[in-house]
């Protein structure tokens, strides 16, 4: 879904918009592949969210500071190169910190390169704004992305393995709903969250229409 170019706003606004109004997962539905694939536990979701945030922040900074030097014709290729460089760094850093996490996330760390969210922010925002704004935008979007991943990962881990962040929540007798950590569960959980958000939005719109129709 392409975003309209909004008029210049305050720095706080640029930061906050990624959290809710333009949340990358729940509203823009971007970067779905990692969202579904690594949200089978809360720890994986958090790691993926942080890695994506870092790559987005660094690439937004670099794209924004180079925005007057990159020729228009080769900009997409340059952005992808910049993103791929930072993803390679993250890939090696995660492998150095925790091999277990590295194996759990697998190829999806490398696949951050083709996360359309990051390329989208570079093209739609960082290439047109200053460094400060670009950093705030990346942080907001990154945190929004991480929170959304945690929402999915939390639900899937609680239902699918009966634990949260690896800590068991239920007594022994609990039968985990295994489907939730399998691929199908990823689709269902995301569909569930989207339904909830659509429902809330619809109710709010209905309420504001009611207010407008009954002038006091």
């Amino acid at each position, binding site marked *: 879904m392409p975003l309209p170019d909004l008029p210049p706003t305050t720095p706080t606004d640029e930061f906050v918009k990624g959290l809710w109004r333009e949340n990358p997962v729940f509203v823009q539905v971007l970067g779905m592949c990692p969202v579904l694939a690594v949200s089978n536990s809360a720890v994986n979701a958090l790691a993926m969210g942080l890695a994506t945030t870092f790559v987005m922040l660094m690439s937004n900074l670099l794209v924004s500071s180079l925005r007057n030097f990159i020729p228009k014709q080769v900009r997409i290729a340059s952005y992808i190169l910049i993103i791929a460089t930072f993803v390679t760094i993250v890939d090696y850093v995660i492998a150095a910190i925790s091999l277990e996490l590295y194996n759990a996330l697998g190829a999806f760390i490398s696949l951050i390169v*083709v996360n359309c969210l990051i390329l989208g922010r570079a093209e739609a925002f960082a290439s047109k704004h200053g460094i400060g704004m670009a950093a705030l935008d990346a942080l907001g979007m990154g945190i929004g992305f991480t929170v959304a991943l945690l929402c999915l990962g939390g639900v899937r881990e609680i239902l699918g393995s009966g634990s949260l962040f690896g800590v068991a929540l239920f007594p022994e007798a609990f039968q985990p709903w295994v489907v939730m950590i399998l691929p199908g569960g990823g689709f269902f959980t995301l569909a569930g969250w989207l339904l909830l958000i659509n429902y809330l939005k*619809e109710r709010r719109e209905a309420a504001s229409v009611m207010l407008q129709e009954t002038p006091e």
Partner: protein
Amino acid sequence: MNGESLWSIFVNAALVNNFVLAYFLGICPFLGVSAKLETAVRMGGAVMFVMLVSSVCAYGINLVLLAIGAPFLKLISFIVVIASTVQLVEMFIKKTSPTLFRALGIFLPLITTNCAILGLALFQTNKGYDFGQAIVYALGAGAGFALALILMAGVREKLELASMPNAVQGTAVALLVAGILSLAFMGFAGLGA
């Protein structure tokens, strides 16, 4: 090297570990281009073709990178090669068959950002497939992608006629359908073993 038989590689990539429904690769085109059956078929064909070409290229690059001892350049060179392959394929098709070029339209350049292609290149090097195995793997993955896309498009064309609450329409119902398809594909587990 990897000792898997070619048949089991194909079945695994196409059905058991379907790229879309089990690995969640290429979800964007899966949700974006699956509204109509006709475009889904064309998109599936284009992706299969690019997968095959980039799989061959990735195999070659990996050999070169290993030879010069620079595996950290893998990701960067893969993405550059995929982008230029797509560009090359686009130019080639435009010259040789303008009809096919028009039929594929915008889907051709969009394939660059399809993570299924990069995923395929990464998986085949991680698994250590030889040249023949890599080609079969690419064919299987492409066939699996096309199959999932076409199934999805068939269901969504019918869904257009169904009446449902506003909140469910659009992405939410597409995800629900994808979830059910994914459950159905779990039935293939054990086939390629």
